[in-house]
């Protein structure tokens, strides 16, 4: 692999990885709050954007730049759909299976519920958008930053100019989410419920409302990830699940529950994937298997995350 190719893979990997990190952050947040693994997370990422596209542009989306009004509509609707889908998944697939302490209780129930919720979103989208993949227009107009839409890198490689703003926005959103959780009153409530739901209740935190807010935030994060991800290439309805699993892998590369670790894990995963794709011996086939293999291996070795401390004893 030449230096130019490697640099190109690195830059693209950072940008894609930051999106994986965003997806992983939503996954991680919901795990710490409810001990439920958000199986529908990835479908919400893709679903929020594609539903917005359906509403604003219709069933034949084209990659041409939408006008200002439609761009605004796409962004706002995608965020709203993200919130709505996330809340709906909570009400339908999570809340019925939580125990007295608002922690996951009926394991088979929420596992089946989460995976089925994802399938319902995919099926609903598939009815309206039957083709294998669609080119989704970019409401944020990142490609317009340069006249050609691409940037030359030292060493001869080129990347789409959108990778830079995507990386910036993703990192900024993760930092903002982290600061929100640490500094704001609502964020403190969320962290207290994550730590100990019983104690949080005793301190006057309304658990039900906190969970709803947290799921809404997870939906916002998912929709943001979708808005950054979808316009970068052709997007299929089925890509959501894979994106969700990549996010889970990102979250598990650090300590499950930590926003910063989810971002770093995502970036590591994205760079590894792009380097695999760019290498002559491995290529795209192995690159598509890599994150899934990482997820399986990490779960086998350290179920609470690669950097999580070993538990003293399990009882």
């Amino acid at each position: 692999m030449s230096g130019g190719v490697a640099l190109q893979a690195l830059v693209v990997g950072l940008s894609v990885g930051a999106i994986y990190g965003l997806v992983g952050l939503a996954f991680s947040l919901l795990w710490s709050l409810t001990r439920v693994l958000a199986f529908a997370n990835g479908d919400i990422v893709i679903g929020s954007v594609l539903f917005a596209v359906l509403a604003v542009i219709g069933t034949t989306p084209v990659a041409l730049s939408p006008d200002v009004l439609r761009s605004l509509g796409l962004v706002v609707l995608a965020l709203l759909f993200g919130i709505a889908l996330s809340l709906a998944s909570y009400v339908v697939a999570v809340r019925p299976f939580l125990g007295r302490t608002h922690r996951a209780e009926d394991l088979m129930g929420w596992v089946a519920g989460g995976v089925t919720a994802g399938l319902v979103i995919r099926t609903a989208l598939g009815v309206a958008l039957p083709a294998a993949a669609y080119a989704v227009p970019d409401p944020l107009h990142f490609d317009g930053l340069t006249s050609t839409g691409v940037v030359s890198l030292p060493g001869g490689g080129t990347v789409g100019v959108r990778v830079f703003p995507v990386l910036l926005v993703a990192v900024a959103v993760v930092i903002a989410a982290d600061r929100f959780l640490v500094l704001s009153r609502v964020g403190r409530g969320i962290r207290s419920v994550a730590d100990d739901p019983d104690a949080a209740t005793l301190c006057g935190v309304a658990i039900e409302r906190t969970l709803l807010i947290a799921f809404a935030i997870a939906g916002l994060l998912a929709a943001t990830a979708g808005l950054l991800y979808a316009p970068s290439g052709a997007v299929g309805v089925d890509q959501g699940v894979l994106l969700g699993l990549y996010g889970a892998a990102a979250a598990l590369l650090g300590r499950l529950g930590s926003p910063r670790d989810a971002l770093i894990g995502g970036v590591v995963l994205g760079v590894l994937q792009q380097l695999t794709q760019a290498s002559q011996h491995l290529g795209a086939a192995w690159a598509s298997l890599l994150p899934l293999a990482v997820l399986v291996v990490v779960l086998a070795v350290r179920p609470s995350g690669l950097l999580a401390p070993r538990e003293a004893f399990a009882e």
Partner: protein
Amino acid sequence: MTTLATDLYLLVAAYGLAIAVSYAGLPVLGQGAFVAVGAFGTTQLASHSVPLGIAVIAAIATAAVTGYLVGFAAARLAGAQLALATWALAWLAYTALVVFPRLSGGAQGLTRATPAHLVSPSLGLDITLQPWVHVVIAAVVDVGLAAMLWRSAATAWGLDLAALRSGPALADSLGVPVQRRRRAVLAAAAALGAAGGAGTAVLLGVVAPADYSPLLSLQLFVAVLVGGTATWWGPAIGVALLAALPSTSDALASAIDVDPLRARAVLTAVLLVAAIATRGPVARLIRRFGLTSVNTDVLIDDGNLRRGSSTPGELLLQLRGVVSSYGAVRVLDGLDLDLRAGEVHALIGPNGSGKSTALRVAAGVVRADSGDVLIQSHAAPGRLGAADRVQAGVVRTLQRTASLGELATGTQVAVGVRVRERSPQVGLRELLRTPAARRIAAARSSVVADAVQLVGLAGRTSVPMTALDSAEQRLLQLARAVATGAPALLVDEPAAGMSAGQRRRLGDVLRALADSGRGVLLVEHDLRLVGRVADRVTVLAEGRVLATGSPDEVRRDESVRRAYLGDSSL
């Protein structure tokens, strides 16, 4: 005929998954991957001129080994992570099939001639596998599996599965080798999945990646959930619903004029949602009509109160200079402790003095940094995990009111007996109802009866645990531990939350256990109870022994009184 055979093969895979999901409580979302291993493995091997029979067996063996390896990881995973790992596995397998056309034959898939011939010159065998032959083969396997699950309810295997499902931590403390059992269950599930896949591949003569997408894993998962927990007929209902799906959706599609494939996808989603939504009510119905094998009661003989086999005064357990730390905190700092047959030895001390850790080290749940643990004067098994220790003769009750959920009281006690049944074929023998198995089952019943009688729960064996009051649930814990036959009982705060009357009853039981030749190491905060039942009291402070002796001696010990008991008297 072909459709029927396909559905029956799917049922084989569903029964395999049911063993893992609805019997052992392991959420496996990747059964489709194992079905694919069977289907593509068989077709690939057969196309490389491997004889068909050997190809099928090799593909099934490959899947079983994969399942066993997944089990190595799964043994340590909480249920949630196992679900995620197997879901990722389902997508990994599917993605691999899609991106490696050499493996899968691409979108068109791999084909071979049908009907297949099963030829073995050495056996003089030449069978043409017509669809009806497939129907017979698949039906025989299905009926065999259903019968096995039906019969397993009251057998050793049924007990182990019930214990895995309802309380793995407790099962481990009673000496059930939880990790080994999980590996076996996942290997069996994977092998049956592959068998279903191999059968379908030989029947249809074509395998394409699209038929083995993660949707298959999801469909199978929900199919085994439909019929409720641990029912032998559940998977059949689920697969019947799945089998009705294509024809129903085609009818629907032609009626309202939509694309049949889309109609099928929508109907699948609707079916899955309905299956999950009706899960609770269905489970209640199954319980109400007793259709489940869960509440099996163990037959109770009129056993005699068995005396512990140890000679009075024999050393059952010794801790010598045990040091144990959590991180930088040294919880046990050179602890010496022993337990003799026939005594109640109470371990007291302030919170954080190391009482519970001492029990955990003795029970093999926590490793000692240094020092020795001797069981009946032999070195304790080095491996971590309670199962070996229980076999060696030390058993611990858990601090909180751990339970095996929905199992009847007698059945819960019977789980404790399992550790004594060393013979690995007990489960198989019981399925076949051999005379030896009947003797084993009878012995099990009599041990259960003894244990229940010792703790004063006779007459309560057939009620579900939820019908016991909190004190009786603690006594049940003791009965389960007694049933393992380990003479050294480690009992952690049994009286927490009990009324005065209940404490008296508990004290009598502890005394009776010691008098029957067992040794009871009791961690307890209630000093009145300790004073009444203990032969010896050891006071711990900061991981060391502060004082030891009879309750009276300890009561008079000035340092104990001053430092740890204030001015109140024992």
